């Protein structure tokens, strides 16, 4: 099942890279740059689609226009200086203010024009000012709001992903050594537990560790008020990290361990492994050079897919854990109909996904000998 997906993490085609007389470094560079360009085009199209969806073909504009009119009317009607104006002069005043406000928000241009202008600014993340939300420092700049939240998300998911990757690799390897043992059978039996998402385990963990045992916080990233001492601050963040990281790990570890173990088992039944054994090589040596090496591309591929599903689950996960990251921002922005923030965070998510794909493609190029030596697409 895994080998089919092996040909390039996301559809890179090594056969097109074959060129005689090219160094392996050159091939890697070529492979990586081709992937970079295709990914960029992909992101552009993805972002444009996002903008189209976010604007609902102009429905959001209608809502916004209505809101502007209401706000302006309220302002004019409560303004002492304007109260004595005759009715038609006041109406004209309202119209002028509405037009001005619409122009300020760029609502006077046709949607198609705006969508392309929006696309350019979305890609450079210069999305101007938000309609409602503000950053913790009080700024209305969308870029600031988004970038302020990004580190929290990166911290949470980075920690969780690394934990997950190494723990599942290590456990998978040690279980494949003990094929048929009780622990091995247990890992097979437990693997369906991964069908539940991280936030779901999160709820149970919160109930247990925060609600009943009262040893860990319910959510958030630091204590309130945040400790002023940097060491205390780091410790507090660490304490808040435990539950969410455990939840993410719990939700994916069973399946990852199971599939890693299965890959190792499949590869350790290859003839060359028997050959290595016959040569009298050490077990560790065999594992490192003959089993781990060829399985790595497959493992990285499945890990990449896992990472992407984790990233996209961020809005709910961060909402459950009250984690002040990008995912919760998107959730809050949606509640406020704050289109620039929604688009910006979705774009940033698209970027994150693309970067993930790219990084893993890069690692893939490094570990897959077929890219390095320009060999033919094999396996099938």
């Amino acid at each position, binding site marked *: *099942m895994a*080998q*089919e*997906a092996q*040909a390039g993490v*996301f*559809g890179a085609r090594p056969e097109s890279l074959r060129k005689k007389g090219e160094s392996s470094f050159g091939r890697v560079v070529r492979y990586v740059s081709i992937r970079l360009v*295709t*990914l960029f085009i*992909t992101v552009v*199209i*993805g972002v444009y*689609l*996002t903008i189209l*969806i*976010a604007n*609902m073909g102009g*429905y*959001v504009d209608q809502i916004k226009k209505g809101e502007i009119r209401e706000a302006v009317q309220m302002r004019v009607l409560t303004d002492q200086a304007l109260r004595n104006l005759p009715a038609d002069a006041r109406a004209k005043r309202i119209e002028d203010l509405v037009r001005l406000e619409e122009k300020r928000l760029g609502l006077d241009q046709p949607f198609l024009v705006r969508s392309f202008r929006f696309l350019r600014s979305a890609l450079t993340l210069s999305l101007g000012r938000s309609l409602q939300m503000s950053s913790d420092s009080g700024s209305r700049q969308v870029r600031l709001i988004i970038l302020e939240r990004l580190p929290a998300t990166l911290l949470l998911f980075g920690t969780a992903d690394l934990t997950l990757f190494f723990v599942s690799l290590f456990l998978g390897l040690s279980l494949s050594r003990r*094929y048929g043992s009780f622990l091995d059978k247990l890992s097979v*039996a437990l*693997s*369906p*537990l*991964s*069908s*539940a*998402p991280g*936030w*779901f385990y999160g*709820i*149970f963990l919160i*109930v247990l560790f*925060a*609600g009943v045992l009262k040893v860990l916080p*319910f959510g958030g990233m630091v204590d309130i008020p945040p400790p002023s001492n940097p060491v205390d601050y780091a410790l507090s963040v660490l304490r808040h990290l435990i539950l969410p990281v455990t939840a993410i790990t719990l939700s994916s570890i069973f399946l990852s361990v199971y599939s890693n173990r*299965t890959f190792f088992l*499949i590869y350790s039944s290859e003839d060359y492994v028997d050959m290595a054994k016959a040569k009298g090589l050490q077990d560790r040596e065999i594992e490192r050079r003959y089993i781990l090496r060829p399985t790595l591309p497959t493992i990285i591929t499945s890990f990449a*897919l896992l990472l992407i599903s984790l*990233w*996209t*689950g961020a*809005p*709910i996960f961060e*909402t*459950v854990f009250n984690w002040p990251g990008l995912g919760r921002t*998107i*959730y809050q922005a*949606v*509640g406020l*109909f704050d289109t620039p923030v*929604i688009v910006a*965070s*979705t774009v940033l*998510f*698209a970027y994150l*996904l*693309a970067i993930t*794909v790219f990084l893993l493609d890069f690692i893939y190029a490094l570990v897959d000998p077929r890219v390095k030596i320009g060999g033919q697409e094999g396996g*099938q």
Partner: protein
Amino acid sequence: MNSLKRTWNEFRQYPSAIISLIVIFILLVASIWVVYAIPYKEAVRLWRGGEDVWYRLPKIVPPKWINWFRTKKLPDTIIFSTLENPETKIYEPSGDGRRIKIEIPIEFNSDEYPQELSMYFFISNAEKAPFVSLRWVTPDEREIRIADFGLQGAKVNFRFAQDSKLRQRLKGLDAEIGLYSVPQSDPPQPLKGDYQLKVEIVTFDPNADVEVEFIQYGKVYGWFGTDHMRRDLKVGLLWGLPVAMAFGLIASLGTSVLAMIIAAVGAWYRGWVDDLIQRVTEINLVLPFLPILIMVGTFYSRSIFVILGVTILLSIFGGAIKNYRAIFLQVREMPYIEAARAYNAGDGRIIIRYLLPRIIPLLIPALVTGIPSYVFLEASLAVLGLGDPVLPTWGKIIQDAEFNGALYKGMYYWVLQPSALLMITGLAFAVLGFSLDRIFNPRLRGV
């Protein structure tokens, strides 16, 4: 037929698969029963109903079975209505009207006090307001006067705790504490035993009648508990099952079948069709799935059908299409396809009759394994507040609970019950899918 038998024989060797199959069967039967027993309209009416539907139920109380795990037993909710027990009403003639006597037995065996005591009177055909007097008889034979008052209007509500004279008689204690306590105990000790509420109503018109309803709002209710709107969670928990099953099954079936067909078409025609499918798959990969679903839910519609459609649309071009395509590319070079071409079979015929059947053994496990993720997806959206506005679902119950701080306030039953149901449903399909994968996928055989 033979291969089916062989598959079944292999299948029987996995006890977990058999158990999961039984569980799924039970879930299926249960969901059909739920839809039959509580029709859609009734479920929506109950779930969206406010105080008028649910006024008899206590607010946010755990289910009955919680008492099995507690040493201090919580009082149950007691609802006594003369509409349901007309034989308890004893009529005696009195002047122009009648004297109605009702004795309401109340069994009290808990270590804690109820939430509240309340009575409703429904008066019919009375031109002159009937007069009611309430007496409370404790197990130790004391009789406490609760109140005497006239019943003005068609419906009268009497809340014990709000009667200031009763409070005075109970030495400042709340009615639900003072009435159930051992006299002069401090702090108040509950007195267990059989209580009695004596209701005596005098009417002044020959045809006048009064129906009486007594409610002891306990600290537990039913087998599922209630929520912040006094709703019986039974409705939501039961109806969540068919919704979750239908959503999971339809989304998974739609996604995997469409992905299979698209992959087959791409692999067969190759060229630009294949290229287009490949590019769309790559774009889809960087599209953040959940944020887009959230946007659709907020801006367009929260109807479960719209969400279902968008989910399928976004999931078709996923990783599965790559897997299927790789297999189809192998299959299309096989001799039997060449044979089909030789007898001049059309493209459509080859795809449907010769390509697609080859993938079924891989499709079935993927389909079953996919169900839990969609079941949980629906719950995820509901937890984010994007659930279907009218349908009760498990995710919405979890969201209500989260929103009302159930985790912080220790109302765990509210979160754990829907979660457990989600887990059972999800796990059953996941276990079955895993077993099927091991049976159908020859590469996994023996490992």
